[in-house]
């Protein structure tokens, strides 16, 4: 079996616990001074890559775990976190603050990166929690012409470069089998990401971080979707509380819910 060269794309997003606020100009969400962190699904991707190495689940072993992020300079923070969790090295593709890339552009960039790095497994999060698009992994697999296994809750390796992936689907799970090279996207149940320990955070500072630009990958930030406006969702009016179960039943009847 081929040794694994894993590419893990990560995204810096507003922290999942922060309630985003729409800006006054209605052009987007306030990001200044807001806590950011690694997209939670991407943490699962790194954790899985590191576990594949540690648990020696892949017969050919893991040769390299490379993390990549396209974003502002601050995206380097999440790359350092990824290396503290166990990734070997990082590539930062500099994109100015506020000039976010659309998934198709990211997929084109990653295609080139996967080719350059001779990756044979790309593990991505199933969606980023800011745009909620859920497209990049599938687009990348399409562009590369590789097999894909999305929303993975279990990844197992067999002989002859075979990869079995259990996927979360509507109503349960299904298992598909493919061969390297392959694209896998992670679902919540895949694993529980580790915390980066202080010594590992220190070590991660010495790991290589390559700085690149979009031009290095032959892509431009071409936007196909124009955001016309961003608004707050219609607020829900809390209807207050009732004293007891009778009150609850009466209110539900009044609202026509039962």
């Amino acid at each position, binding site marked *: 079996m081929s040794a694994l060269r894993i590419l893990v794309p990560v995204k810096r997003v*507003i922290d999942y616990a922060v309630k985003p606020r729409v800006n006054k100009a209605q052009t987007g969400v306030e990001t200044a001074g807001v806590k950011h962190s690694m997209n939670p699904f991407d943490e699962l991707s790194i954790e899985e890559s590191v576990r594949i190495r540690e648990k020696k689940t892949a017969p050919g072993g893991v040769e390299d775990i490379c993390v990549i992020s396209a974003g502002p300079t601050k995206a380097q923070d999440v790359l350092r976190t990824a290396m503290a969790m166990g990734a070997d090295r990082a590539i930062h593709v500099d994109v100015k603050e506020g000039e976010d890339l659309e998934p198709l552009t990211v997929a084109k960039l990653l295609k080139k990166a996967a080719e350059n790095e001779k990756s044979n497994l790309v593990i991505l999060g199933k969606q980023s929690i800011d745009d909620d698009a859920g497209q990049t992994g599938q687009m990348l697999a399409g562009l590369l012409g590789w097999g894909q296994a*999305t929303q993975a809750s279990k990844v197992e390796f067999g002989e002859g470069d075979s990869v079995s992936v259990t996927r979360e689907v509507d109503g349960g799970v299904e298992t598909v*089998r493919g061969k390297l090279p*392959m694209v896998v996207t992670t679902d919540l*149940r895949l694993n529980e990401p580790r915390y980066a320990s202080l010594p590992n955070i220190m070590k991660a500072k010495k790991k290589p971080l390559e700085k690149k630009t979009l031009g290095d990958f032959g892509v431009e930030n071409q936007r196909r979707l124009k955001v016309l406006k961003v608004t707050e969702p219609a607020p829900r009016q*809390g209807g207050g509380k009732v004293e007891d179960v009778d009150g609850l039943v009466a209110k*539900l009847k009044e*609202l026509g819910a039962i």
Partner: protein
Amino acid sequence: MLCTARRVIPHQLRRQIAQATTTTSPSAFLSPAALRRLASTLAILEQREGKLNHGSLSAIAAAQKIGGSVHGFVAGSSIKPVAEEAATAEGVEKIIAVDSGAYDKGLAENFAPLLVENIKKGGYTHVIAGHTAFGKNLMPRVAALLDSQQISDITAVESENTFVRPIYAGNAIATVESSDPIKIITIRGTAFAPAELGKGSAAVEDGVDPKVESQTEWVSEDLAKSDRPDLATAGKVVSGGRGLKSKEEFDKVMQPLADTLGAAIGASRAAVDSGYADNSLQVGQTGKVVAPQLYMAVGISGAIQHLAGMKDSKVIAAINKDADAPIFQVADVGLVGDLFEKVPELTEKLKK
């Protein structure tokens, strides 16, 4: 608008139609006026073991909002009966069917090229599928093959190129305009009522089958069996959270309530992660998005990721012992109390 377009530019339009049919490049459809005139949508329908997924008829309903012609697409083994049933959907002009067992499991690696061929052949300007496990897996691959930036999980169609979609777990609503000649769209099922069956009589036509080999093969599946209504489309949903304490208690408390109301059972991520309920029951940003008539949250605090999956419900009721739980801020009616007392009492009173 349509009439004007037809009157003013007949020659130009004819030329573009001619170009569009002689070239496979989607960029042949350039003029916005021509786009308006030619808007035609392919709605991707889902089937499973020879049965049409009625929820996927929402794609036809969304397609009708775009205007122009609406065709449906199904693929699988012995697809004829499925195609004929789909052909009775209101508003659909034609059903394209591809009869081949290779597409039964909806593997994106061969289904995407299949769609691409049929999209090119039909000259569609819009392709719509549900934002379901099937649609999520398949459509971005289709979009990439067509060099189109997909628009995911839309909740409204404003015009043929402008769509509304929630971002940041539904904490913001974005209106986006697409400049792609072929728009690849997934829709939030709860935002578009499925097209009604038995009201139309569309023609069924064989699609093209490029017979691309899939790099992956389907091995097995394990689906939760349930006699209850489907969570995603149920009129009523009762949902349990961490407050249920164990799987036994979850089943003991939630099932009688669901049975009494004729409701589907849902769960918060906490309940799923703790093993109280199956993964497929999770409601939220990373699980199912539901919008039933009644959503009853039991022992659920109401984290933003959970609210993302249920806050479009018509009526939200909450039972929680913590009076300050965020769920009460969105609930139409809230009851503070111990769910182990209140829910059985509620179940009894509802039975009467």
